[in-house]
């Protein structure tokens, strides 16, 4: 969770923030390492093909550090080259979760101040995804990385439905429980199955007419806040998330919504 902007930070000497390039050992040398396989048998032409791929990627002086004949018509390359592209760092704007990171006690205090009832949160790992460690890290009593999970917060009332939960089952529970927030975990991302699972839930929640009363939050190792927004969620949390980040966000966001 690196949520603070670093746009006004101090740069190493010689850096022009409007023209950022990769760095190896000399400012603006553009040094980049890459590796890939090609479905062509090893040989001088394969080597040249690898070099050309790197060239097409905009790498100057691509240099084949290593080549392996993988056999059966495949070859593997490790290539270094000098990236010619530059990025205007000063123009980058990244949507960020608008919140202050608080600790357990701070959050409890905040909640007691703003709410006179417990906030209801339901969580699940959906689809055929059986990876519970992530959602448990956020919800379980025992918590994660030294932070208590949501179950431990007296001001939250939680249901952790576990894994392999279908969107239908989850929606039913959201409605029945009158959940204020739903937490969806998606770990398996093969063929972008996580994206379709998540998008489907949003559609179903909207069809049910409960979207505006529900804070929709997703998370997982390949989830970012940006991806979450694109999918129609309110927030997304990636690797390294701690329970207090999520609890704090829910608290602050619900207050904000009440105000607006």
């Amino acid at each position, binding site marked *: 969770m690196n949520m603070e902007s670093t746009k006004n930070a101090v740069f190493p000497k010689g850096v022009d923030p409007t023209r950022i390039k990769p760095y190896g050992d000399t400012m603006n040398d553009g040094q980049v390492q890459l*590796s*890939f*396989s090609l479905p062509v048998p090893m040989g001088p032409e394969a080597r040249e093909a690898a070099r050309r791929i790197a060239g097409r990627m905009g790498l100057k002086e691509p240099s084949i550090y290593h080549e*392996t004949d*993988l*056999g*059966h018509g*495949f070859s*593997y390359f490790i290539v270094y080259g000098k990236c010619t592209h530059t990025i205007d760092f000063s123009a980058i704007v990244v949507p960020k979760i608008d919140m202050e990171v608080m600790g357990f006690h701070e959050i409890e205090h905040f909640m007691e101040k703003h709410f006179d009832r417990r906030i209801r949160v339901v969580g699940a790992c959906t689809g*055929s*995804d*059986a990876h*519970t*460690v992530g959602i*448990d890290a956020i919800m379980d009593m025992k918590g994660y990385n030294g932070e208590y999970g949501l179950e431990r917060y007296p001001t939250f009332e939680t249901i952790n439905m*576990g*894994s*392999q939960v279908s969107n239908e089952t989850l929606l039913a529970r959201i409605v029945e429980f009158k959940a204020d927030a739903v937490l969806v975990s998606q770990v*398996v991302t*093969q*063929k972008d*199955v996580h994206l379709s699972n998540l998008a489907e839930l949003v559609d179903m929640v909207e069809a049910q007419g409960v979207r505006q009363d529900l804070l929709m939050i997703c998370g997982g*190792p*390949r989830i970012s806040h940006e991806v979450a927004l694109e999918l129609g969620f309110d927030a997304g949390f990636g*690797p390294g998330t701690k329970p207090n980040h999520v609890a704090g966000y829910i608290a602050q966001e619900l207050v904000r919504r009440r105000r607006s």
Partner: protein
Amino acid sequence: MKTSKLGLDFEKVDAARAAASEIAASVMDFAAKRTTTSVERATLRMMGVEGADAEGVHWVNRVVDSPTGRDLLAHGLSVPFADAVARTGMDASETARAVAAGSVEMAMPSGEALEHAVAAAEDLAADSFRRIRTQRSRRQESLAELGEGERPLLYVIVATGNIFEDVDQARVAAKAGAQVIAVIRSTAQSLLDYIPEGPTTEGFGGTFATQANFRIMRDALDEVSREEGRYIRLCNYASGLCMPEMSCLGAMERLDVMLNDALYGILFRNINMQRTLTDQRFARLAAAAGGFIINTGEDNYLTTADAAKSEHTVLASDLINEQIALRCGLQPEQLGLGHAMQMNPWSEDMFLKEVAMAQLVREVFPGCPIKYMPPTKYMTGNIFRGHVQDALFNMAAVMTDQGIHLLGMMTEAMHTPHIHDRYLALESGAMIRQAARHLGDEIEFKEGGIVRGYAAEVLENTCALLEQIRREGLFDAISRGVFADVRRHMDSGRGLDGVALRADDYRNPVESMLSLMAGVKGE
């Protein structure tokens, strides 16, 4: 007297094993009294029912799920089905289709017809048994002729979702030194109550396990084995709701290794424990008959439980699994017991503890080819660090003389392996195996040291835990969340509706034949 590099107290080991044996006996007893839809489907497959309907549902499912199928479940379907075959004069598959269509009715014969039907069932299964025997001897011959290379056997996964792509990846892996190729199954195939038919090209995080896919890969590996001059083993899953059928297919298609563990399904897939333990009994009989190695699922436990507190649960479960397997006729050399400790690679003396555990499991199961694995949970997107972490485990595997080493992949945290990920993992595994070849012979662990102390402590805790499970029973232990920190209950979870108490007249000639072949006293 046995010698131990850890100074183990083998009386403790014996005590633990005795407790596990009692636990296993009661589980087996429980399972032997029951049958399941999947056991019966496996039986029908063994009797020659092949093919699927237009929707891809296999005829064995259609037969078992037909109204009479359901009615007859508790009595066993093989005899009524054999009777129907005999009656109609059609072959098994045709009969199955007819039963499914409702044009032929099954019923439990009695008297002389019963004995005829039993004999007919045995006849129908004869081909499958012949096939299994042929496959066993082919494996033996290939191993005798080609050998399989140095130990630990390097085990890698392929998981593209497309069996043809898997074949390419497997060939490249074999050339790079792989000795066991595991085709990872599409996510949650465990939960499918049928086995898809035919070659498949669209899986998630793995490729569907189908009979056709088994065969395609086996053929490819046979070819590669000849090219490489080394028999290359094929691994897949006999796990989940179709465990018995998968195990039979494995025996018929000459899989050499199959993941097979009821506890995995219970804990990680929420499959009902009655169902899957019953299935497991039949599946392991088939495994014993097929002569393949099974891999148990203890390597998964510490992904959810705390590694620093629960190492002994892994060893306890290994012992239970061993005892169950032996009772199904499996030989020690077929028991690829799961082992992965999931210790934080940054913790002090982690490597010593890992070595202690790896050595412990070797010494407790000297005759079994442990499936030794590096921790997967501590892998991150930092592939360079991950590659080094895996290298530490390559070293530990050689130091403790492991039989099978499931190689970690540096990209483990992020994707199923790309073609070169596997290549690089094999390169590291082979290099370290060579560079540290005799390290295990060479070193001794100091008395009173960390390694010996840790092993002794874990053994002690294992004894205590098994003693407790012996008293309360495995089912209750699972409900208490002893394994993997996951709680499951007797009557919850998937597949319970497919379980039936065997009726007094339950008959299953195929199971008897399997038992016979497995060297287990039949019912």
